[in-house]
């Protein structure tokens, strides 16, 4: 539980992260992900509640420091010193830990060897982020915290970071990350907690959550004349349709089997003389789970 004035930033969370897994906190901006992860990192004090990390409680003294030795932390807004080189930055961070990777080891991990003598302010966004992760990995952590590690990165840089996380996990490490990219969570995480307004609204593996929709596909369409659209009841009677949702002129059907629902939909539209302006189908994603739970899209939530 964490309050800022009257606003409860995080309220009544109950999460357990198992050793060796990758756990994702998902949600739109302002959902309380960063507050949650910073409470776990011991950087923010909760107003109420119990936090255990690697079986230990946070304290200000030697216990807290001993715990920090085993953690790797990447914060969302940190800007590393502009005029230090990559090597100097890693050297600085490794000096703060009793047990640490060498500079070469960690630069190999994040593939920044060719930039080792560049100043930080000369790095691209993706390289800076990898350096930030390098500073988190330098302590050979048991548990790695990543707060929106790929926000604002291009797809290639994002994939590079995913590879780094995969390598870390292959070595037995545990990861807790926050993201507002659902596809990232689906790809990386064993378990996710979807957060909204400081509360967990869904918890489970991405597969379980999607299966919870009762259907694995989404058919979305739009009509040239919105007035000719069939009503929800008619759409709901189509074979395999679980849910009907209207969103800004588009209609989304969550269906079990596309190959049954689609011909029936087309036939229905034809009998009503409605003309399609657009039709897409995709596998249901965590985004659809979020939409089903909140009625909002992540991006505009």
């Amino acid at each position, binding site marked *: 539980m964490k309050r800022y004035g009257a606003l409860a930033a995080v309220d009544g969370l109950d999460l357990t992260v198992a050793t060796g897994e990758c756990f994702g906190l998902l949600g739109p901006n302002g959902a309380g992900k960063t507050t949650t992860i910073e409470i776990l990192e011991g950087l923010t004090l909760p107003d109420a509640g119990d936090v255990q990390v690697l079986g230990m409680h946070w304290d200000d003294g030697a216990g807290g420091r001993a715990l920090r030795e085993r953690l790797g932390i990447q914060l969302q807004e940190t800007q590393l010193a502009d005029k230090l080189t990559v090597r100097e930055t890693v050297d600085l961070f*490794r000096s*703060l830990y009793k047990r640490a990777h060498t500079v070469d080891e960690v630069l190999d991990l994040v593939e920044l060897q060719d930039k080792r003598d560049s100043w930080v302010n000369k790095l691209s966004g993706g390289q800076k982020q990898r350096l930030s992760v390098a500073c988190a990995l330098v302590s050979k952590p048991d548990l790695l915290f990543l707060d929106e590690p790929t926000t604002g990165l291009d797809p290639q840089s994002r994939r590079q970071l995913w590879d780094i996380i995969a390598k870390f996990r292959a070595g037995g490490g545990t990861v807790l990350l926050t993201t507002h990219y659902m596809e990232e969570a689906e790809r990386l995480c064993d378990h996710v907690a979807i957060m909204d307004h400081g509360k967990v609204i869904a918890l489970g593996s991405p597969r379980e959550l999607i299966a919870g929709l009762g259907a694995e596909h989404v058919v979305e369409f739009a009509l040239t004349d919105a007035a000719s659209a069939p009503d929800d009841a008619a759409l709901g009677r189509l074979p395999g349709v679980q849910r009907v949702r209207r969103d800004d002129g588009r209609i989304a059907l969550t269906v079990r089997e596309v190959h049954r629902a689609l011909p029936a939909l087309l036939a229905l539209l034809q009998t009503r003389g409605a003309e399609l302006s657009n039709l897409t189908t995709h596998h249901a994603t965590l985004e659809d789970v979020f939409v089903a739970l909140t009625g909002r899209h992540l991006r505009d939530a």
Partner: protein
Amino acid sequence: MRDHPLVQLSLARMREFVREPEAIFWVFGFPIVMAFALGIAFRNRGPGELRVAVARGAGDSVLAATLDRSPRLAAAVLDSATARLQLRTGRVALLVVPGDPLVYRYDSTRTESRLARLEVDGALQQARGRTDVVAVRDERVTEPGSRYIDFLIPGLLGMNLLGSGIWGVGFAVVQARQKKLLKRFMATPMKKSHYLLAFILSRLVFLFVEVVALIGFGWLVFGVGVRGSWLLLAGVTVLGSLAFAGLGLLVASRARTIEGVSGLMNLVMLPMWILSGTFFSYARFPDAMIPFVKALPLTDLNDALRAVMIDGASAAQIAAPLGIVALWGVLSFALALKIFRWR
């Protein structure tokens, strides 16, 4: 050794500093430029010739010629309006109005004018037959230690220690806080004391360069020497630097933005630049202000530096001002630690 956090944190501080060309200029270059400019402007060339005017009237040219014969006076005959204007604007130090009695018009609060009054009166009285009754002989001295530059160099050194302590520490701390780098360090097992000590250590390294540069410059260009012990001078600068680093930490202990801390720094430094006897002696301030002025750390540091450099004072003689400097350092460091915003 190289892997010790204190070493790495100090190294990072020093690297960041030397890679900032503006900082280098303000800390090392500026005081030297200042010493050079002021040293040239106020070099001891004596009062030179004093310009005086004689208003038009009976016997004006004889008066002017008499005055002009004196080696320390330059006299000209001017019409009354021009003469008054030049007197008012300070282009002439004194105006002689012919007549009986002769009238000297001058501003008695101007040193130059009073000097002109003496010279003019002496020259005119002698020309009319006054004789000196006591035999005197002039003995002139121009010794290092009594010139303005000798006064200035210790003051600039003190000002520089203040500026580099407050800027060097304050900006770096607030920048780290603004960029969330401080918070990032708090997410590591780093000891807070190591972080703060690194600032102090890197300050001491630069202190050495600053002191050697400024004193070396004063010695090479103006022949400003150090009369007291070098070791004592080193001790005084180290103490001053530590105290000002503490003050810098205190100024930076809460501020979240560079803009915020800049205002605070000026608030702390400006009064001391003016009051603490950097460019001119604080004895010029009214007596009632002196105790307050003497309580400022820069005043005491300047006093101690001048005592060592000019008077060759011993440690015991400067114990009192050094005590005040140390007290400022200890108190601001302790308070800074207590209220420091770590994230």
